[in-house]
């Protein structure tokens, strides 16, 4: 049995749950733990883990879903770029159905605009090589896990002289929003499950500020149910003892200093910039922009006409993403905002907090 499949085995999960229950018995009060990775949200939902945790351990989803945090104007710009003559927009599947001001990339494609779904930035580069008469714009979204892959594709484009490969950067960094959330006492988050694959690149040391500056426990964890529960157990244990640390529980791929080659490649092409997180607003130095010397590869420099973006009235995604409220407390939840007709970020992605909540209520037949 491979390490990964052993880690998913039900017996191991049950054993860890018993451990969590035992440790939770020592907690002085109910605690709120937050995970900040869409893949964690998905893995937790797929195994139904949230419902297995003891009542005094609350696990919520933070702003870790790239679909959820991509602002409307990014998607508007992507659509506008796709409408330019001789332009192809290449995107990960995640972005295809995100609502923009006028529709979505999927709807734009139906109108005849050229949008291609790719699995890798390299596939987008190949499109550019194969079609030198058209400009290929790659929608570069994602956190530290993904930005190195885009940087590598840019390096290849530079080395091989492929001038028609451009990038629209929507990349974001994970530590800045964590600082925001850790400092938000109203949200009252007691500990964090940290994204294992972001940490492969950044290194686990990049998150030590959570304990050092904010005295909050955090655990870098992988993505099997066992990995997640190990993290929950470690956080509950640290909270029970009052000894917050940042621990690396994904040591099979995460090192303290991460992947220096990947980070250097990102530095070569990108610089930190302020950017807007849907629902959270602007966070300084939380995004990546192409360096000025790469202006000819920056799709943000291309002239396009953009619609006036509008924030839906009553939408409380920001408060949900910060963990301040539960989805049903938003006035739009279940009425104006449903998975079939999503208004805000948290309902757009199938793994957003609101979408996940809505879906689970349907188990019991409770009308939201």
């Amino acid at each position, binding site marked *: 049995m491979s*390490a*990964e499949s*052993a*880690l998913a085995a039900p*017996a*191991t999960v049950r*054993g*860890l749950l*018993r*451990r969590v229950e*035992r440790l939770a018995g020592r907690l002085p009060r109910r605690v709120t733990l937050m995970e900040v*990775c*869409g*893949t*964690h949200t998905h893995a937790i939902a797929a195994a139904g883990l949230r419902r297995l945790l003891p009542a005094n351990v609350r696990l919520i989803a933070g702003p*870790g*879903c*790239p679909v959820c945090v991509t602002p409307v104007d990014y998607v508007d710009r992507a659509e506008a770029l796709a409408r330019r003559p001789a332009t192809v927009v290449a995107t*990960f599947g995640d972005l295809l159905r995100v609502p923009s001001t006028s529709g979505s990339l999927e709807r734009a494609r139906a109108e005849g605009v050229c949008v291609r779904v790719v*699995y*890798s*930035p*390299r*596939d987008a580069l190949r499109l550019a090589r194969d079609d030198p008469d058209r400009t290929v714009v790659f929608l570069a979204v*994602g*956190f530290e*896990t*993904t930005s*190195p*892959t885009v940087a*590598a594709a840019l*390096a*290849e484009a530079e080395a091989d002289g492929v001038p028609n490969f451009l990038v629209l950067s929507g990349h974001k960094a994970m530590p800045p929003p964590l600082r925001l959330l850790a400092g938000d006492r109203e949200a009252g988050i007691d500990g964090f499950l940290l*994204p*294992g*694959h*972001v940490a*492969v*690149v950044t290194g686990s040391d990049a998150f030590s500020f959570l304990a050092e500056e904010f005295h909050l426990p955090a655990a870098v964890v992988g*993505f099997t149910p*066992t990995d997640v529960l*190990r993290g929950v157990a470690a956080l509950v244990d640290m909270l029970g003892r009052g000894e917050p640390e940042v621990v690396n529980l994904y*040591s*099979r*791929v*995460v090192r303290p200093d991460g*992947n220096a*080659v*990947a980070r250097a*490649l990102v530095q070569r092409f990108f610089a930190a910039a302020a950017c807007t997180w849907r629902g959270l607003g602007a966070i300084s130095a939380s995004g990546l922009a192409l360096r000025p010397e790469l202006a000819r590869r920056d799709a943000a420099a291309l002239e396009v006409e953009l619609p006036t973006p509008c924030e839906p009235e009553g939408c409380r995604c920001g408060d949900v993403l910060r963990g301040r409220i539960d989805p049903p407390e938003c006035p739009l939840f279940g009425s104006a905002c449903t998975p079939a007709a999503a208004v805000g970020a948290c309902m757009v992605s199938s793994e957003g907090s609101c979408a996940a909540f809505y879906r689970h209520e349907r188990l019991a037949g409770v009308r939201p």
Partner: protein
Amino acid sequence: MCLAVPMRLVERRGEDGIAELDGVRREVSLALEPDARPGDHVLIHAGYAIGVVDEAEAAATLELLREMVREGDED
């Protein structure tokens, strides 16, 4: 933002390689893990290897988990 899958690197040609999982193979780029060798398990995200699995740590993790589960049973 983290869909990455561990695969075994079976072949290496310069900065590119072939990685395999359960009989499924894909061409991957080793630009971000230039020291990866055939036989290594690499973490693949969007067609690139972003990390190498430390076999010793993987084994240690499994053993630790077995311990934990045994401890849990004794409660």
